[in-house]
């Protein structure tokens, strides 16, 4: 049975004078422990889709199933890492990571153990007492991931978490993310513009079509891990994804992303 499943998700948005059909019946089934990467042209509805999966937005039609049961609204078992990070500037790094645990009423000592573990994992142990304005973009993004992991969700929803990073930091995090995924066995839905990123990370890749979006194609990637960005097999997968993506990007008239 699928861990999390989207069935016929439709979402419209009202714009000045017309109704924009962003998602046009998305069907996606993600198995327990899958790492699903979602690529698609800019503005096709990837963020919208993740928000619906997180329960932060409601579809006009269709449903989200978790362990086979329909869910509505947010839940601690589905945590979204925002494209914008959305860390709380008024809290220290460690308090950011502990936020959800505090809301759940977990006592302070246990909370700080958990936050220490994930900050260590993200190599941020020295910054537990810092505020977010004292961090670089890449560090903020790692805090956001630590904050999500601290919730110990079954499903991690990540919206272009590495988009704003420099190449070196991104390469580092690409390896880290694979290790964390292998270690924690989380189900991950990971949106990206970057075809290379999708090929390195995904156990599967879903290519969204241009608006109104559907899943144009799903590919499985069974290359050994940890994958790093240079070998021929990986390049072949990248070409395959690009071949699906390119016509959609042309149709949207946008650039190809990265």
């Amino acid at each position: 049975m699928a861990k999390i499943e989207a069935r016929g998700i439709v979402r419209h948005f009202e714009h000045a004078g017309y109704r924009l059909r962003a998602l046009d019946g998305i069907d996606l089934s993600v198995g327990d422990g899958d790492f699903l990467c979602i690529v698609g042209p800019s503005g096709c509805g990837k963020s919208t889709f993740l928000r619906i999966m997180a329960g932060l937005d409601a579809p006009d039609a269709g449903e989200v199933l978790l362990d086979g049961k329909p869910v509505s609204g947010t839940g601690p078992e589905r945590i979204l890492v925002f494209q914008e990070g959305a860390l709380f500037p008024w809290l220290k790094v460690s308090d950011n990571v502990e936020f959800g645990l505090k809301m759940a009423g977990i006592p302070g000592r246990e909370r700080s153990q958990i936050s220490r573990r994930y900050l260590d994992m993200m190599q941020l142990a020295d910054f537990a007492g810092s505020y977010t304005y004292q961090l670089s973009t890449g560090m903020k993004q790692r805090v956001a991931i630590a904050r999500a992991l601290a919730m110990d969700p079954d499903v991690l929803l990540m919206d272009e978490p590495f988009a704003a990073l420099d190449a070196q930091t991104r390469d580092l995090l690409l390896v880290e993310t694979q290790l964390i995924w292998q270690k924690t066995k989380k189900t991950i839905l990971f949106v990206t513009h970057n075809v290379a990123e999708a090929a390195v990370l995904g156990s599967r890749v879903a290519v969204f079509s241009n608006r109104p979006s559907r899943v144009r194609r799903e590919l499985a990637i069974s290359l050994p891990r940890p994958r790093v960005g240079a070998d021929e097999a990986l390049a072949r997968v990248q070409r395959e994804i690009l071949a699906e993506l390119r016509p959609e990007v042309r149709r949207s008239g946008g650039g190809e992303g990265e």
Partner: protein
Amino acid sequence: MRGARRRPGSRAVRLIFYAALVAAWQAAAEADVWPDEVFPSPYEVAEDLAHGAADGSLLHGVGTSMWRLLAGLSMAIAGGTALGIAMARVRVVNQTMGSLVLGLQSIPSVAWVPLGLIWYGPFDAGIIFVTAIGAVFAVAINTYTGVKNIDPHYVEAARNMGARGGQLVTNVLIPAAFPYMMSGFKQGWAFAWRGVIGAEMLFSYLGMGSLLNIGRFTNDVSQVMAVMLVIMIIGMVVDGLVFRRLDDRVMSRWGLR
């Protein structure tokens, strides 16, 4: 701003300015253009200050006014914060209270004095009422603006991590809106300070405003000026020490500078 205040010369410039001001005042008083009962010399005012400090009347006045201010202002902050959040988050509250609050905010604090007298009598409660009501709407409006301006991602992230109802208010809405709320507190304090002095003058029941009044009734110009000086100094101290420092911290912490 921070850099400008720390510049070494600025303190000296300020010192020279105030020294010159006092010297000019002294010269004007010595020129005897106006009689002493109308325009005292800085020496006479200082004497009055020393006298008031020695017999404890000034200290008592300051203490009384400050405690009324604190009582009124904390009520205004509590009530204004609650009202502002409700206006920002509950549509019907905004539709109803929103315009009313804007209207009430335009009433000067002293205009509440008659109501304060009628409802609470000419005692502490009446003065505190005037102080609180003079500040509460400024706090409410700034809180409202602050909550309206919160990055929606903060609220969504918090909801996703399980924050609900009151948790959301105390852990996200208030801290996220705090930079705006700070301006509300600053305005609220300014209104409250004016309100408390105004009310004390009209109620004539202890406090700095009442000391001003006594000076006026006894034609004691130097007492009037001495009290005004103290009122001004308290204002400068609160602005400069309390608010500017808090502002600096909040602005840098929230990454706004």
